[in-house]
């Protein structure tokens, strides 16, 4: 069966009208519509499967690792389609190990650990609930003795470490000012960077790190 007949088959199965070529174009394999799908590359098969899933405008789309086998452009197309489907009103449920992708498109994120749902929330909600939600990096010409202990003692600071004259404190957002303030008092501050916890950090904090 060619790519097009696969999509036609899916449309027929769902009792839906629709243009198979439009679906193939949406997933970006128009050029291969008349080729046998068994000869498709992994990424093309993935795209074809997405076209078959999109056939008939389903209300719920369940995608398992939708971006595996796709090049960066393909992954971007996939992300765009997920967004479009969500805007159309469909619910899109997908699993992924690529946390940037999850962060980019998801309204709600569930973290699975050892088969158990460790947390479900929006990314912001997860950040809040996880506590260790951000980082502040302060680069100093020299880190004075005792500063680490002082900062570790601050409310809302979870961890402090020093590498190459840069002090890194994992802390909640409200504690960041106090951290910077103490560093400023104690020595010469050359640079300050702050960041919010990435989903990766959240994932690690929910699943307890480790292997």
């Amino acid at each position, binding site marked *: *069966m060619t790519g097009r007949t696969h999509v036609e*088959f*899916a449309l*027929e*199965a*769902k*009792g839906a009208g629709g243009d198979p070529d439009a679906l193939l174009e949406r997933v970006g394999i128009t050029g291969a519509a008349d080729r046998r799908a068994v000869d498709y590359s992994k990424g093309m098969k993935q795209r074809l*499967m997405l076209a*078959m*899933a999109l056939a008939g405008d389903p209300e719920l789309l369940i995608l398992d690792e939708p971006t595996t086998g796709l090049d960066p452009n393909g992954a971007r197309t996939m992300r765009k389609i997920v967004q479009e489907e969500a805007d159309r009103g469909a619910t899109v449920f997908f699993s992924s190990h690529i946390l940037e992708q999850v962060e980019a498109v998801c309204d709600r994120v569930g973290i699975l650990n050892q088969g158990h749902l460790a947390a479900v929330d929006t990314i912001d909600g997860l950040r809040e609930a996880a506590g260790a939600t951000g980082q502040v990096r302060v680069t100093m010409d020299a880190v004075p003795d005792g500063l680490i202990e002082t900062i570790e003692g601050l409310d809302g600071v979870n961890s402090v470490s020093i590498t190459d004259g840069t002090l890194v404190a994992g802390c909640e957002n409200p504690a960041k000012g106090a951290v910077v303030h103490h560093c400023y008092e104690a020595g010469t501050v050359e640079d300050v960077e702050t960041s919010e916890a990435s989903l990766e950090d959240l994932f690690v904090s929910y699943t307890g790190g480790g292997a």
Partner: protein
Amino acid sequence: MNRLLQIARKDFRDAARDRELYVAGALFLLLGLAIGYIVGGSPEQADGASVAFGSLAGLTFIGTLAAVALSQNQIVGKRSSGELRVLLSLPFSRRDVVYGSFFGRWALLATMSIVTLVVAAGLAFLRGAPVGVAPLLGAIVLASVLLGVFVSLAVGLSAGSENTARAAAGSFGIFIVVLFLWGQLPGIVRYVLNGFSSPTGATPSWAKAWGHLQPIAALRNLSVDVFPDIAPALSAFANSIPESQPVYTEPWFGALVVLAWVVLPVTAGYLKLRGADL
């Protein structure tokens, strides 16, 4: 039901891309040519049922073998290639897939047996032998039912197997048991029950009845009154009917047995697949 038929149609159409189908098709064609050639070779000895009889006898072996060969990979092959998951992600149920494949293959095999009969009849007729239409139609019906039994067995095993090797071994194993070893099984059981020595005395009635639970014998018993001139073509692989005509050789009993052979294997396979973790 529509979805089931969609699977059946897909199954039928998919066959056109299948290399095995061409081998099997050539076999059916050759069988038809051979029967037509032989019957046509001595037209004075032939009657209107000769072509139908010969074709049905040939299909009892070649047709059933082809039915097993073309059906045994239908579900498990899809399972191992991932096609099954794709089908199930569309609005098809496991039931649609199993029974759809079953009907699709059955239709395919019935079509191929029609090819054999039509080719045989055509060639015999051209060589001057008489060809009756009613026996031909009867042979088409009997061959189709018989092939349905073997498609059911092989599709059922295919649905119930976790890998292709098991499905193939099981299907061909059952084919051999039904065609060649069925009649020996009671003897083996009696031999074991008798302390691994040859049993003595008259054959018990259960052992006699066993021979008529075989699908080919049951089909013959079912149809011998309706098609007395072609049903005996099935007897090459079936126990003969005793003089006393016990109840298990009655047509209605044969009908029940045949029905069970068509319905139960594919259903058992479906039930196994229904609970399977894919």
